C-alpha cells in the first residue's frame, strides 16, 4: 500500500517536473520563397487539401492542437514533425533539385493512394485529414500538373 502511494507521488512529481521543459514550436511568420505554393501554380482545392492534411508535419508551420502544451505529448509530436520535415518539407520544396521534386511528387501520390499518409494516428485526431476518394484524385491531379510543369 505504502509503496503504491510513494510510486504515485514520484510519478506526479516527474509529470509535473517535465511540464517545465519548454515546448519547441515549429512555426514561422514569414512565407518562404521556396514554398511549393510560391514556386508553383497550384489549384485552390489542392492547396486547401495539402494544408489541412499534410502541413502540420511537412512544413515550417504547424497548427498545434491544445494538448501540445502537455509533456510528454509535446515531445512525441515534435519528433514526428522533425521526421516528417526530413522526408518532405513543402516550405522548402523549391530548394530540392528537379529530380528530387519529381521523386517527392510521385511519393506523395503513392503514399496517399496506398493510404499510408496521413498517418493513422494523425487521422484519428484530425477528421479533416481523412481524405475521401475525390480529394485523393485532386492530389493526383496536382501531382500530374506539377510533374508537367517540371518537364
Amino acid at each position, binding site marked *: 500500500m505504502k509503496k503504491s502511494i510513494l510510486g504515485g507521488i514520484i510519478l506526479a512529481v516527474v509529470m509535473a517536473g517535465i511540464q517545465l521543459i519548454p515546448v519547441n514550436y515549429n512555426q514561422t511568420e514569414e512565407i518562404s520563397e521556396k514554398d511549393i505554393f510560391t514556386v508553383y501554380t497550384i489549384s485552390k482545392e489542392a492547396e486547401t487539401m495539402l494544408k489541412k492534411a499534410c502541413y502540420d508535419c511537412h512544413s515550417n508551420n504547424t497548427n498545434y492542437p491544445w494538448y501540445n502544451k502537455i509533456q510528454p505529448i509535446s515531445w512525441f509530436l515534435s519528433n514526428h514533425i522533425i521526421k516528417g520535415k526530413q522526408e518532405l518539407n513543402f516550405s522548402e520544396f523549391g530548394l530540392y533539385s528537379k529530380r*528530387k521534386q*519529381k521523386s517527392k511528387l510521385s511519393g506523395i501520390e503513392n503514399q496517399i493512394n496506398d493510404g499510408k499518409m496521413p498517418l493513422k494516428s494523425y487521422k484519428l485526431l484530425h477528421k479533416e485529414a481523412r481524405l475521401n476518394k475525390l480529394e485523393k484524385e485532386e492530389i493526383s491531379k496536382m501531382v500530374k500538373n506539377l510533374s508537367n510543369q517540371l518537364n
Partner: protein
Amino acid sequence: MKNIVKLSIVAVVILFFTACKNDKKETDLKEGHSNEMNMENEHDMNGSSTDMATVRKSDLTNQIVGSYLQLKNALVLDDEKNAAEAGKGLHKAFESFDMTQLNDAQHKEYMEIAENAKEHANHIAKSDLAHQREHFKMLSVDVYDLIKIAGTTKTIYQVYCPMYQNNKGGIWLSEVNEVKNPYFGNKMLKCGTIQEQIN
C-alpha cells in the same frame, strides 16, 4: 490472288520468327542476343524499335550497377528480404563512388542523382515489397541517368512495363535480354518490352 500474296507474306514472317527462336538456342549467347534484338524489332507493331546506345566504357559505376541489378533480381523473385539487403548495398555503393573522374557538369548531375538515389535505397532497405517497388521505379531512372553520364562496361537493357501503377508504367534496367518484370514479379513476370540496349 491478293490473298495468296498476303498469306505467303504471313507465312514467311512466321517462319522467320521461328527460325530466330531456334537459332537462339543453337548459337552462343552473344549471337542469341543479336538475334533476339532483331526479333524484338520485327515484333513491335507500333513501329518503334529497340534503340541502341553506347556509353563510355568505364567500370566507375560497377558497384552501383551491380547492387541495382541485385535489387532488381530480388524484386523479380518477390524477395523482400534480399531486396532490402540490396538496398543497403546500393546506398553504400553510392557513398563510395569515385567522383574525381567526372567533369563539373557531370559532377553536379551526379550529386543530384546520388542524393535522390540514396534516399530511395534507404527506403527500400526498410520497407515492404509494394513500397520497395515504388521506390525502385524512381531509382531505375536515377541509375539509367547515371550510366548515361558515367558509363559502364556492361551491356544493359532498358525495359518498360506499361501496366505498373495503374497503367502509369515504369522502366527498369536489366543485364539480360529477356523480360523478367521486377514490378509484378511472379504475378506478371513477362509483362514488358525491351526499349533500349546500352553497349
